[in-house]
């Protein structure tokens, strides 16, 4: 079996901290910390660095690795199905989107971990390319007045938001193979700066009141892109980077599980989702 190169592993470390922010994550942090989001994220990064030290030890325990993999699999499948259904295919029944994602998971489980890391490496390059484009086109649209403090400074809320950030950005690392040996804190820091820049774009362009009403503010900012009135409506292409990141976590989490157990879990998700689909939606959103 081919070895996973350092570059491939680092690509995955870079991609994994973000998918859990999709949907609820960003909303929660903005809702709690408002214009002090930057403080929450900086504190969150520090907490995250500390959590990674703990997770390095936890990642060796098989039971924890598998449990977290199952939780992340269910959570990411739910958020990804909701996002695709809301933003891309709003006429398509959610169950069809879910089935497609389940087939993708089964296919990626049929491949080895090396393949997942190689694919992640390619997705990383695409993701960076899309991000640079986003940054260059959206940066001039930032309105500095949106950063001025509009909400009062509540330390408790800022700390809760930073803990959210720390957990959401580090939890996926438990699912990584050889995390103890190959973890690179510099890549984690770089990935968190990327996330901080995304938050800065969201708040700078939309402002706290608008950003906190949208389910996917990270998608809405892409709708603002207009280059010479020619390049417009590119939100669906740019949002792909979030989907790629979710694919990576789904691929890695599914590879930690036994094929039979995985199949059982996926069938269970499908049955539960199809039976309780309306009720689940009402509870979460």
């Amino acid at each position, binding site marked *: 079996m081919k070895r996973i190169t350092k570059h491939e592993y680092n690509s995955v470390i870079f991609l994994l901290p973000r998918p859990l922010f999709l949907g609820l994550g960003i909303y929660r942090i903005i809702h709690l910390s408002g214009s002090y989001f930057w403080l929450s994220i900086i504190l969150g990064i520090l907490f995250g660095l500390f959590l990674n030290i703990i997770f390095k030890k936890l990642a060796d325990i098989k039971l924890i690795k598998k449990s977290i993999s199952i939780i992340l699999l269910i959570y990411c499948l739910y958020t990804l199905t909701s996002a695709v259904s*809301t*933003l891309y*295919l*709003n*006429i*398509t*029944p959610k169950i*069809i989107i879910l*089935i*497609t994602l389940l*087939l993708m998971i089964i296919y990626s489980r049929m491949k080895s971990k090396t393949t997942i890391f190689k694919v992640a490496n390619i997705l990383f390059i695409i993701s960076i390319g899309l991000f640079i484009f986003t940054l260059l086109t959206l940066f001039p649209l930032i309105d500095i*007045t*949106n950063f*001025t403090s*509009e909400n009062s400074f509540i330390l408790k809320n800022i700390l809760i938001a930073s803990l959210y950030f720390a957990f959401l950005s580090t939890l996926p690392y438990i699912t990584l193979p050889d995390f103890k040996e190959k973890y690179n804190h510099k890549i984690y820091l770089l990935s968190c700066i990327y996330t901080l820049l995304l938050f800065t774009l969201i708040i700078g*362009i*939309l*402002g706290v*009141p*608008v950003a906190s*009403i*949208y389910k996917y503010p990270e998608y*809405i900012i892409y*709708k*603002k892109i*207009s280059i010479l009135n020619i390049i*417009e*409506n590119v939100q669906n292409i740019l949002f792909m980077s979030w989907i790629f990141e979710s694919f990576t976590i789904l691929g890695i989490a599914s590879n930690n599980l036994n094929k039979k157990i995985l199949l059982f879990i996926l069938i269970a998700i499908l049955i539960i989702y199809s039976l309780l689909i309306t009720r689940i939606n009402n509870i979460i959103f």
Partner: protein
Amino acid sequence: MKKIILVFIIFLLSGCFNYKEVSDLAFISGFGIDYLNDNFHIILEVQENDEETSSYLLEGSGRTIESAIQNASLSFNKNLYFINLDILLISSEAANKKLPNILDYVTRDNNFSFNFNIAICDNQKHAMENILNKKEIFGRYINSLFKNTDTNVINIKLDKLLNHYLNDKYDIILPVFNIIEDNIIINEAVIFKNKQIIDTLNEREMALYNILNNNQKDYYLTLENNIVFRTSHYYTTIIFKKNTLYIMPTLTGTFMEFESLELNNESKIKEITNKVNEEFNSELDTFIKKIIQNNSDPLGFKRLTKIKDLPNIKYHINTKIMLENKSLIFKSVGDNS
């Protein structure tokens, strides 16, 4: 077995569910909403897919915006698509009574653009037909009107309107479309208080609003002896210190159309510059007093001062006029005697 699964995937899971061709979509460029007798009346400007400069109108009524749109498209064989929407026109009646419903409708649906302008217009059909008769697409025409920096229009897009609407430290401001001699003119704006229209701003006041908001538009000031001061750019800083709001605009520009002013006469230039400063300060002071009297805050003073009611606010205006000579001539062509 794998091949069977592959064939199954190829035939059943490739392509999009309920896929629609572009020719089956009707792209809306202009959208007008009026509210009369407890009913929404809507007008949609649909762009022709084949022709670049051709569009037509659809009209409908209903108790809700959705039902009005459904009524408008009853005999229409295409799906309405708002992703290219350029302008949303709201009547003053609809703005006063149903603004929350309208904003909710246009923000909730992902088929809506996020980059369109919003304005008040009470003669929506007349305005749209006027431009359509000139063989232009109304939405695009209005879009270019807003981009023109020569006129001091207030440019409000959905994100800015939402930001101010959801923020209790701001009040909304919206430009108004008037039709004068079959021409659309954006020479007024309305300010809101408690989500209701409270007063109107004229062209001069709109220019001052743009200066205080750092929206780079051209501003000019005419002095008594017909000397025109025209800005090339400006920047305003507003700070709150010792219970006083300091409003500090810096206007950079040149003198134009002067008949009896020598550019090399330094003391004369200084005198006229001071006059510009005085005139501008007095114009700005009147404007701020109007805002304060209405207790409406489209400039977000409450955000800076943390004061709940504007009438309690103390303010101080400190204007700086900077001259730059970007004109092509040294001396006045007019009479220098």
